[in-house]
């Protein structure tokens, strides 16, 4: 027996926002948590645009609100889209109306080097044993449950739970014995770099993310400071081979063919030195694991699932799953409810969140009608193969209404969304400042539901009331850090 064995209540693998969130919310209940991060922070990461529930919900629960304010991140009041039939951008704002611009009406654009480090150092301050530059080799366990992890040097940490928050390229997610299933319709890749001196949308939208569709896909344009902009092209995976060559020429070529981004970058120069000087690619296929849990182990963030970057959901899904995982593990460690019961709640809520965003994504891509374009034709709901759609959606826990009904549902979502976008109209007009039409569509209502709950929780703390989200589901305890049965909530 190797003498090099230590024990903890929970081992968290990965120090990104999902891992830090899980670890911090476990440590707040007094558990011994070891977090193992492969790199040394600060380190580069993509996924720079946040949503309000991360900032105002999770951020407050973690206790980083003031630090985030001090970091002076770019304030984002929503997304601006050159997308669909309107030839000029329209807004999806976080506030339903200008007069209702309370604490939840904005998020941030963040340099992930800074944001992720704030969350990781905060985890350590909350009592998490944070270890960087540590390479986890494998998960150890038996048929009954996962029992810990083994490092590359043979050192073992045994724990009641292992949380895999190690991202999309790590392999330890296989420890839950599931399969990673890819959506047939959103197999995109991203090619991205950084520019100095790009133009800004007029205030108060100057901090918004701009997403602009063009023939070959769409581009993101994220203002990270007054002068620095993150620019990426999301394109079909068929371009992957071409990108092996001159990445700079490829990126500049996409910029050149995307009218509004070309204009915004007309006086800008590409950053060519330092962290932001590199042009990078990432496989942005939408996928989900067939299971997120087995006894003793749970997946969080990109280790579990990923959805196309167009809605800035990466950090949201990771931190939301971190909250759900912490609630579930805290409940089991306290001996309040059985593991299978709480992880049914975990998996049910996490899959629901993924599913509603997947439906929103499908409806959103459907709006960009471009019959000449291979990219857009392949991503139209009407062209979805019903069997493939059914297979993927049933995996994420969708209603089993049959293939044709499912395609019909997605078409209706898409029609309602396109109609709402048309009625909302151009940005910075009287109607374009009001989100009643957009927020009123069934798919957006569903998308907002949990994000709103989390923000109310963050702002109101123990005074927040939550109803069960799932049928016969559990609800959060008063402090929001574990689950209780409905009758036990005060």
């Amino acid at each position, binding site marked *: 027996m190797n003498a090099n064995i230590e024990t903890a209540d929970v081992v968290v693998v990965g120090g990104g926002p999902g891992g830090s969130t899980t670890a911090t919310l476990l440590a707040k209940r007094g558990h011994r948590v070891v977090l193992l991060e492969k790199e040394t922070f600060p380190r580069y990461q993509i996924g720079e645009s946040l949503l309000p529930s991360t900032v105002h919900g999770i951020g407050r629960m973690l206790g980083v609100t003031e630090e985030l304010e001090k970091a002076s991140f770019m304030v984002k009041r929503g997304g601006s889209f050159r997308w669909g039939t309107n030839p000029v951008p329209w807004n999806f704002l976080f506030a*339903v109306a200008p007069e209702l*611009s*309370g604490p939840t*009406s904005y998020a941030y654009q963040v340099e992930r080097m800074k944001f992720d480090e704030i969350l990781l150092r905060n985890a350590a301050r909350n009592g998490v044993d944070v270890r960087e530059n540590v390479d986890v080799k494998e998960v150890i366990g038996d048929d009954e449950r996962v029992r810990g992890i083994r490092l590359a040097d043979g050192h073992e940490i045994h724990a009641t739970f292992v949380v895999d928050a190690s991202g999309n390229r790590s392999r330890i997610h296989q420890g839950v014995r599931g399969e990673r299933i890819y959506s047939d319709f959103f197999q995109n890749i991203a090619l991205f770099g950084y520019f100095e001196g790009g133009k800004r949308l007029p205030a108060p939208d100057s901090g918004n993310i701009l997403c602009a569709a063009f023939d070959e896909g769409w581009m993101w344009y994220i203002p990270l400071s007054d002068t620095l902009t993150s620019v990426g092209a999301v394109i079909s995976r068929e371009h992957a081979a071409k990108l092996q060559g001159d990445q700079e020429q490829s990126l500049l070529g996409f910029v050149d063919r995307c009218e509004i981004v070309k204009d915004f970058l007309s006086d800008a120069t590409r950053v060519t030195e330092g962290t932001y000087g590199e042009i990078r690619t990432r496989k942005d296929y939408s996928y989900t694991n067939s299971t997120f849990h087995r006894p003793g182990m749970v997946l969080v963030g990109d280790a579990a699932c990923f959805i196309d970057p167009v809605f800035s959901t990466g950090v949201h899904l990771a931190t939301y799953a971190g909250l759900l995982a912490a609630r579930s593990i805290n409940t089991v460690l306290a001996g309040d409810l059985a593991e299978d019961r709480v992880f049914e709640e975990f998996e049910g809520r996490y899959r629901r969140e993924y599913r509603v965003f997947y439906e929103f994504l499908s409806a959103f891509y459907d709006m960009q009608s471009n019959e000449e374009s291979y990219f857009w034709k392949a991503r139209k709901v009407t062209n979805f193969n019903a069997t493939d759609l059914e297979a993927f959606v049933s995996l994420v826990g969708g209603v089993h209404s049959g293939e044709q009904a499912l395609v019909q549902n997605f078409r209706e979502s898409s029609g309602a969304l396109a109609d709402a976008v048309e009625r909302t109209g151009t940005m910075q007009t009287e109607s374009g400042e009001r989100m009643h039409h957009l*927020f009123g569509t069934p798919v957006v209502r569903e998308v907002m539901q949990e994000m709103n709950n989390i*923000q*109310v929780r963050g702002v109101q703390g123990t005074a927040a*009331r939550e109803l069960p989200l799932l049928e016969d589901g559990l609800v959060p305890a008063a402090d929001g850090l574990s689950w209780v049965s409905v009758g036990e909530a005060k």
Partner: protein
Amino acid sequence: MTAPLSLERLRSDVAEVLAEEPGSFADDENLIDRGLDSIRLMTLATQWREAGFEAGYLDLAQEPTVAAWWNLLEGKR
């Protein structure tokens, strides 16, 4: 918390989330002018949904007055 949804309860719940005295605002007064924001609106929507009033946050945001909400509630009965 469990009082049935009367006009009186609507007024007192609104007073509570605004941290004001009941009776310090009129039924037809725009509550946004009294400091109602999206979080408080969501809170009210959740409380009332628990009591059987199926209007959501967005319905309440359309016309943020006690009188309008009471009409909405009466319409759903």
